């Protein structure tokens, strides 16, 4: 990567980190909301709702996807096509499985009568965890776009590296938020 490209890349990095700062504030406010309203005076107590198995399962998938993404990052840096693709593919699969588990979790909550407007606790749970799930879904779309970019000849190796690096920042960030969700949303109420 030559000097001018590096400068542009650095701009983008700084910009994206600031953007992640914005996301951090967003989630911080939602975490605060959750903590203010949970447990709610009426409606179910959180531990009646949460199922520890489900949380462990989804956490396993999402957190390991950060690891597989690192493989892809190394692949790009070393310019090893197969490594990159392998890492990305695994990440994509794990992400989709995570999202599936998440959707299933929401679905089973709703089946049991724990809907969005059942109580303020559940409302703040859904707006927070739901927004996180939306980020995962967006990330999945982004990864699919990356696969296509990877094959395009107009996209030079250095540009591809830039694109994937930015994505990996996003993905690690989304993973990091999940850790906080485990710690602040689930853990206090899972016995």
């Amino acid at each position, binding site marked *: 990567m*030559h000097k*001018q490209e590096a400068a542009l890349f650095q*701009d983008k990095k700084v*910009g994206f980190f600031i953007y992640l700062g914005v996301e951090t*504030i967003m989630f911080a*406010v939602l975490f605060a909301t959750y903590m*203010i309203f949970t447990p709610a005076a009426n409606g179910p107590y959180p531990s009646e709702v949460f199922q520890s198995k489900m949380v462990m399962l989804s956490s396993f998938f999402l957190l390991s996807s950060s690891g597989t993404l690192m493989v892809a990052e190394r692949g790009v840096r070393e310019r090893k096509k197969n490594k990159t693709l392998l890492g990305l593919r695994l990440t994509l699969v794990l992400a989709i499985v995570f999202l599936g588990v998440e959707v299933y979790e929401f679905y089973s909550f709703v089946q049991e009568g724990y809907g969005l407007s059942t109580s303020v606790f559940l409302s703040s749970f859904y707006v927070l965890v739901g927004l996180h799930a939306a980020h995962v879904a967006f990330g999945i779309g982004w990864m699919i*776009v990356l696969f296509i970019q990877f094959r395009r000849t107009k996209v030079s190796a250095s540009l591809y590296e830039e694109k994937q690096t930015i994505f990996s920042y996003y993905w690690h960030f989304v993973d990091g938020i999940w850790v906080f969700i485990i710690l602040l949303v689930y853990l206090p109420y899972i016995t």
Partner: protein
Amino acid sequence: MKLSMFGSEYSIPTDIVAAWVSVIVIGLVATYFVVKKRKLYVIWDYMKTTNHRKIGILYLLFGILYFFRAGIDALLIRTQLAIPNNDFWVFQGEKYNELFTTHGTLMIFFVAMPLLLGLMNIAVPLQIGARDLAFPFLNALGFWLFFAGSVFFNLAFFIDMTPEVGWTGYAPLSRAAFTPGAGTEFYVFGLQVSGLGTIFTALNLIVTIVRHRAPGMLYTRMPLFAWASLITSFLILIAFTVLAIALYLLMFDRLFGTGFFSGDEGDPVFWQHLFWIFGHPEVYILALPAFGIFSDIISTFSKKRVFGYGTMVASIGLIGFLGFMVWVHHMFTVGLGPVVNTFFAITTMAIAVPTGIKVFNWLFTMRGGVIHFTTPMLFALGFIPSFVIGGVTGVMLSLSAADFQFHDTHFVVAHFHYVIIASTILGVFAGLYYWYPKITGYILDEKLGKWHFWTFLIGYHVTFFPMHITGLEGMPRRVYTYSETDGIFLLNALSTVGAFLMGISMLFVIWNVYKTHKMKVKVSHDPWNGRTLEWTVPSPAPVHTFEPMPVIQSIDAYWYAKLAGHVLPTTTDVRIKPLERDSIQPFCIAMSLLIVSTGLTFRWYWLAITGGVALFAMLVLRSFTDEREDFYGKGDEHA
């Protein structure tokens, strides 16, 4: 007004008929001129542009347009309040409530913000030697998001669905149970969409200032407007994000039946916390850039460098920091208890100190200088005493026990118009007169400018000074009338007179712009004998600036170079200018969000989904049309 169509009767309020008529007439006239002068391509050009100066112009144009609209609202407010028990047109009860909601929301979000962002867009890159904003595409997107949000908010009025919850949108009044119409949705989505644009622009400005300064333009040599913009941008990032989440929660409350802000399960006061955690920093977001503009102008026209540059920068930072610790001063009466009240009273008072530093440093910048009374300087001079009056009433409000009396009266209305108009509005006027040559290549007429200044300043004091007293007489804000026995008739009438004087003063602006563009007298690159880098580039600033790139060796480098009689040294070893390519995509992305908002507002979920799909399609398209594709991987020959 009654209308019968297709066999059924509709009744349309006459103010809305008037609005439609005037918009159609203005629209037709404008179209006629555009077509006749064959200027359609200019509009198309601006819709695609990613150049910082052109985007700045767009911001300014719409900011001014909405200033007129919100100003007309203000005149209607004042007319209704002119005499006791007035029955002016339709503006009692509901219509009055809509009036102040629109006035306040427009003025803050769609007047003050774009005007300041517009000036930052134009002047900051030129002041620091950047060749454009770091992300030109994102800059255009920021503008068009603002545009989409503002258009959406304004549309509400034309279909008689104006929000009526005040600019603060207090819950639970803003929940669907109490304002069931679609009006409040226009508030929610209008602010959400435009707020997103504001966040992007702030981010862009930060990266530009941090990474695109000219060689030698150290942080200790940056003009104060650039400094103020930098710190303001950080405030925007935090404050507008909190607002975005507040609106997000309110949206769930209204659309999907959650109860965050309801009285029985949630907490209405939580909305107030979120709103003011945004709202208070917001007022400094309005004030700080103006402080920056005034610093540059006062220094330029006193022919002296700014007094105490270091403390000036430090105090901007301190004001910004303290700005996040005082929000409860808007909530002294909600019963958070004596400890909370006193804590926030003290932090609020503390802001007077850094602000005072700035005031005295401005005064001492003038001391020993040679003060030229140009129009921009007059606005800066008008600002100082006016702002101090507004600032000290702010300190009076911060005394929590006294605020039990002041709160929600016209005393508060007086306070915030004093500070906002003194800082933001006078600041924007000053900036417009000052940078007009850089924006358009023409200089505004000084004589008409002075007329504008004096009528506006006098009108402003006549309007808002009496409100301190009506407030103490017990006149609450947001009421559409009062009775003769309240003893506040004359003061209110005086206010109204002042408001119309301000209206008249704006006519001078229209005349001035018209005259200037008719005369077409081009100015040189440095009409004010300026000190900072923007005066080294031609007027109007071209698309390619700073070629070759100047090297900066001191504060106000251009000034000292002129004094010493040489030109600024230059270098060719510079980083690449931000890649830019005209694109209509930012416009389309913003429009798809407009569609999403419309869909959600009217619960037409199919439309919202269509808009959402369009939005993602646009983002994917963007990813495949990245202008970096043509640049990357080709070695250094592009440099």
